[in-house]
């Protein structure tokens, strides 16, 4: 089977780039001809869009379009394609999350949400959601349920679990107090301000030596949000207790996970949330907000709260810190969840079953 994987931007380590690359690798392992096409690929690994054209008219080929934000050329390609079409839907953050923070993001995300309806109307052969939450989005946009399926994003968990951590950073992060860890780019939907409020309460009432590690890129287009984070850090007097790690490598990310006592995600909107799976795979107990796809991804392997009340989050981390049995129970649940739902062989099997169903 010829499979053309289409993404707007093929990142090296971001969730969508990883999904596209690993998906292509899985298909190749099973004897299919899989190629990646992108408008931009800073780290390489993709062919230009012009090379995609012959495949669009090949009825035996399959086009898999990774859709995560508004990109009119992608819609145009889908519309012109005469081959079988699969939309890989990673979800688009609702623009309301960026209101007051970034008009540019608000506009781009608004366009992306509008494209969901457009793509739903193209009547593609299959719509693959990262999670049931994403599929619900598609159903609301008018996609027929029988044309939908859930396949979690392909990941590099094996790579993360097997490769050694950065020992220098591991030593540097050695610490007596509780270590909270949050992973994800600095964006308003990730609710860093709520995270800082919860951490400040924990620092004041539970552990004066606690520390918060925030791993994630800072986006200049979200400077107002970045500034708000700094102001919140300053307002709570957290300067000596919060450490931001930008642009970390995989071995550095692993060092952060290994040093963490709890992984905290208060994000209000996630189409899947890969860091949750990384935390589970590395045995870090999770405290998360029961919002969007996070409850499904976590699969009962963490402490979930409907609202990110600082006291609940702080008390959760304190309970995890003091209750070894609960910690071990959540760790085992997490490892089981990863093995059953997100292991590469599981995802391969699910993807192949979906694609074979097309023919």
């Amino acid at each position, binding site marked *: 089977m010829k499979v053309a994987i289409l993404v707007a931007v093929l990142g090296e380590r971001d969730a969508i780039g990883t999904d596209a690359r690993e998906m292509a690798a899985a298909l190749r392992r099973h004897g299919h001809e899989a190629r990646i096409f992108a408008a931009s690929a800073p780290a390489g690994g993709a062919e230009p869009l012009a090379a995609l054209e012959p495949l669009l008219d090949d009825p035996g080929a399959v086009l898999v379009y990774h859709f995560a934000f508004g990109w009119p050329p992608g819609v145009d390609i889908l519309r012109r394609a005469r081959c079988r079409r699969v939309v890989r839907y990673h979800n688009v953050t609702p623009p309301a999350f960026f209101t007051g923070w970034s008009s540019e993001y608000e506009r781009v995300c608004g366009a992306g949400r509008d494209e969901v309806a457009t793509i739903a109307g193209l009547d593609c052969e299959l719509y693959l959601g990262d999670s049931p939450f994403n599929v619900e989005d598609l159903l609301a946009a008018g996609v027929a349920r029988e044309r939908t399926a859930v396949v979690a994003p392909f990941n590099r968990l094996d790579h993360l679990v097997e490769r050694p951590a950065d020992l220098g950073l591991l030593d540097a992060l050695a610490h007596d107090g509780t270590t909270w860890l949050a992973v994800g780019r600095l964006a308003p939907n990730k609710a860093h301000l709520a995270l800082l409020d919860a951490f400040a309460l924990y620092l*004041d009432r539970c552990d004066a030596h606690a520390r918060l590690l925030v791993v994630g890129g800072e986006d200049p287009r979200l400077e107002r949000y970045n500034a708000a984070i700094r102001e919140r850090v300053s307002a709570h007097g957290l300067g*000596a*207790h919060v450490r931001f790690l930008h642009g970390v490598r995989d071995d550095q990310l692993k060092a952060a996970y290994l040093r963490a006592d709890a992984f905290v995600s208060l994000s209000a909107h996630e189409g899947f949330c890969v860091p949750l799976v990384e935390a589970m795979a590395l045995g870090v107990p999770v405290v998360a907000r029961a919002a969007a796809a996070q409850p499904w991804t976590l699969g*009962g392997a963490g402490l979930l709260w409907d609202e990110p009340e600082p006291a609940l989050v702080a*008390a959760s981390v304190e309970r995890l810190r003091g209750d070894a049995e609960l910690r071990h*129970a959540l760790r085992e649940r997490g490892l089981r969840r990863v093995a059953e739902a997100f292991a590469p062989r599981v995802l391969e099997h699910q993807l192949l079953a979906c694609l074979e169903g097309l023919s």
Partner: protein
Amino acid sequence: MNHEYDDEQLERVHGEIRAQAAALARRPLLPRSRAAVEAGEMAPRIDSSRLSYAVGELTDAHHRAFVDGAFRALLKRTPTAAESAAAIARLARGAAKAEVLGDLRWSAEGRRVGARVAGLAPRYALAKLHRIPLLGPLVDGLLALAGAGAQQRHVRAMETYFAARDEDTRATLDALGARADHLEANVALLGQRIDDLHAFVHQLVLAREADARTIAAIEVALRTRVESLEQASEAQRNKLGELEFVRDRFYAINHWLHRLEETFAEVERVADAQVGTTQARAARIALQAAAGDAAGASRHAGWEARLAPVLPAHARVVALACDPDWTRRLAAHGFEVSCVQPDPVLAREAHGEGVVVEVVDARAFLERCADASVDALTVPGTGAIAAQLPVLELLGLAHRVLRPGGALLLADAHGGVAATAAELAGQARDARLERWSAALFAAAGFADAARIDAADGTPAWLLRRETP
């Protein structure tokens, strides 16, 4: 530890956490630890989201902080390392901050951003005026003259500032000195630990060498053992070869023995057939003799007359080599008669006369009789059994089976015929009773020996077992 939590248990944990959360606010505030991480990574900086600033906001900072703030405010980004180094170098060469700010603001990138900085334009113009030959130094002089008072105030303020900084610096140096002392102590401690580790490593090396020696000794012992086992194994293999040889020979001998047994069996079978033929012939001769014996009845009557009176009623009588007439006479007295006839031909003949006969060898019959269990033993024809049971042995067995006082009748009826038959069969004959005497019988344990020869001359003796 039980790691399995079911959903119900997790729900209970959620409830307990809710209760803990409600109690958090009532806890006392903890004193903050400042050693958690290095401070300053996200320290408050110039708010780059604004587009309007006062020039003092930007010029108050110094050195790298000034450069960073200028780029964030005027270009809305952080400087690259090269840009930062260039700006700091300009400041080090004496460039005015207003000139650096103005160059950024009115650069192509700065114009695109369009940030407003109140009070910057005249300062920038003045800074640029200094670059004009002649006019620049003249303006500098005039300005210096005009601002001499302010400069003096500034110098006094700087003196106070530096004095304060000097105190801070001394305090910092003191703290650093203390820290250095602490580090020195730690280094010394580490040195001691390293020495300890060296000593430990040395011990490990010694232990490893000792282990290596032990292992070498064990290896030598094992090699020796292996060699001896190999030798033993070789010897065992040789013995096994010998055993194989012996086994083959054994099988061969066994085969020969089997063939020998078969040959012997064949020989015996032929001999038995020969004996059977001979015995049958002897029996026919004996029958022929009996049939022609007209005096048999009178002989039997005479012996009956002598024997019956000395026996008790219902006496147990054994008649060896009997003939039917003799046993019928005994039975007629009510005696319990056991008639023994080893010759099957004669036994069958006797059977036909209505007498119960036991077909067995005379010696075998007497050997199985209990001691002193018989009242009388009669042998009318000693010649017929002499080949199997000579008279001397017969006397011994009779002495054992007869109860004390029991009677023994010996006769040699048909002695001539029997002798002829025995000679024909190639057997010796030793039953000539006429040669015996009372003294000889007494020596064998029998008393009252009386000669009761028949009228036809057949020799016969009636004996009584001695009573102890």
